[in-house]
């Protein structure tokens, strides 16, 4: 099924202030894969993610999502396929109630009221947050907000789910719930994170980004137990693999 493929070919990107964030990114993700993206701060993880739904456009090289090549014209269409969940849920939940937030996406897709309600219920149930639907986001805890943010993205039923530091602000219990939840998703998943244990748990494949290029790409079990590789890239072995 070609519409679930994500392909970056020789992607270069430079920020207006001159920072060369991506210097030739190459990888290919196929349907249903779960890929972790790791690397030092400033290595280019977030920049990479922002290319996935066309918020940023490559200076050179191509980004292909499914059958579509990323251009200014196809951006809108691509946004239906790729759902991105950001680090800070407060930036993602901008409507007065949870229901409104989760409905935002489907409404923008032009769906009718009944279908929107159905999607919202489905998405909220998926993250066990249906009871929160009439609450305003600022009454929610961090964990609840993260769950709702995911629901808000899932309500659009994207083919590909991308996440930027999903567990960063979560307490251990919420983090565990998130991991369990992610394991139930059958979509293609791309997760950028410093939480190497989460990546080990959820992602079968792992890409290491260093200085704007792909430094390593392979099964997580291998990559994340390669101490030398990790330390070269300002990382460490996942805590669960570290021996006392």
């Amino acid at each position: 099924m070609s519409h679930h493929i994500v392909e970056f070919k020789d992607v270069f990107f430079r920020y207006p202030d001159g920072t060369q964030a991506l210097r030739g990114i190459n990888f290919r993700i196929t349907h249903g894969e779960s890929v972790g993206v790791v690397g030092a701060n400033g290595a280019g993880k977030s920049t990479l993610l922002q290319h996935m739904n066309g918020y940023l456009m490559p200076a050179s090289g191509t980004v292909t999502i499914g059958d579509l090549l990323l251009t200014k014209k196809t951006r809108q269409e691509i946004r239906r396929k790729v759902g991105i969940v950001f680090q800070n849920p407060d930036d993602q939940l901008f409507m007065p109630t949870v229901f409104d937030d989760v409905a935002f996406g489907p409404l923008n897709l032009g769906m009718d009221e009944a279908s929107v309600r159905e999607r919202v219920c489905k998405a909220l149930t998926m993250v066990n947050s249906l009871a929160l639907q009439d609450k305003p986001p600022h009454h929610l805890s961090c964990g609840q907000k993260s769950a709702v943010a995911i629901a808000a993205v899932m309500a659009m039923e994207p083919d590909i789910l991308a996440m930027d530091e999903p567990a960063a602000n979560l307490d251990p219990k919420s983090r565990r719930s998130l991991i369990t939840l992610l394991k139930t998703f059958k979509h293609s998943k791309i997760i950028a994170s410093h939480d190497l244990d989460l990546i080990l748990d959820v992602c079968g494949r792992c890409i290491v980004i260093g200085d704007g290029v792909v430094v390593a790409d392979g099964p997580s079990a291998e990559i994340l137990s390669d101490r030398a590789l990790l330390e070269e890239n300002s990382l460490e072995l996942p805590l669960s693999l570290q021996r006392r």
Partner: protein
Amino acid sequence: MTFDEKYFDIGRLDRLSYGETFMHRLDPRAKVIGTMLFLLTVISFPKYEIAALVPFLLYPALLVAVGEIPVRFIVKKMIVVSPFAIFIGIFNPILDTRTAAVIYGVSVSAGWVSFLSILMKFALTISAALLLIATTSFSGVCHALRRLGVPALFVSQLLFLYRYLFVLMEETMRIIRAREMRSFGKRGTGLRVFARLIGILFLRTVDRAERVYYAMLSRGFQGDMPSLKRSRMVLPDLAFLSVMIASLWVFRFFPVTDGIGRIAQGLLR
């Protein structure tokens, strides 16, 4: 009030507004219209009117009782905003010393009468405003406003403001605490620091707006805020509004207090 106090104050009122009583469940449009009519009626009384205003206290009393709003909280908020009205009003007794009446041998000046009238009107109008938000969530009020004809752009504006109000207040609180920890007494709370603080807060706000915009784009935003939920006014709402309008009419145009007083005087014979 200090920043912290104001923050908790708003938070408390906000949480109250999500209650589940009969008052809370009434359609926001009914409550907004009812409140505005109430306010108009109260201020339409002439300058020296006091007794006829008393029955109007029934409205805030009912809201407080049925809505289960803590009385002390509302009264405290009223006191906090009273200075301006009191300050202007207090000139009335000072300047208007004509005697209006002599009661039990004490002569009461017209100035005091009009001042008391101002205070009564103040209590009624401020409590009505506070109780509106205490029994209706802010987003409810906004949706009511939109249904009543306020431009959609402005309503979206209000909703965003509300959404990020608490976030921004928390961020500001962090900055202020940092300022407090590094300034000793009055040094450090001067203008230059303040301007810098505001500047920093502004920049952070702009960055946040950018991220929010990105989130909106990622979920398909194309310029128009989508909306849903058309609630209809049902029987309880219409009943509430009719009772309200009828009562306002009666209390405004019939000297109820006076009548009751006369009956009582008659009975005391």
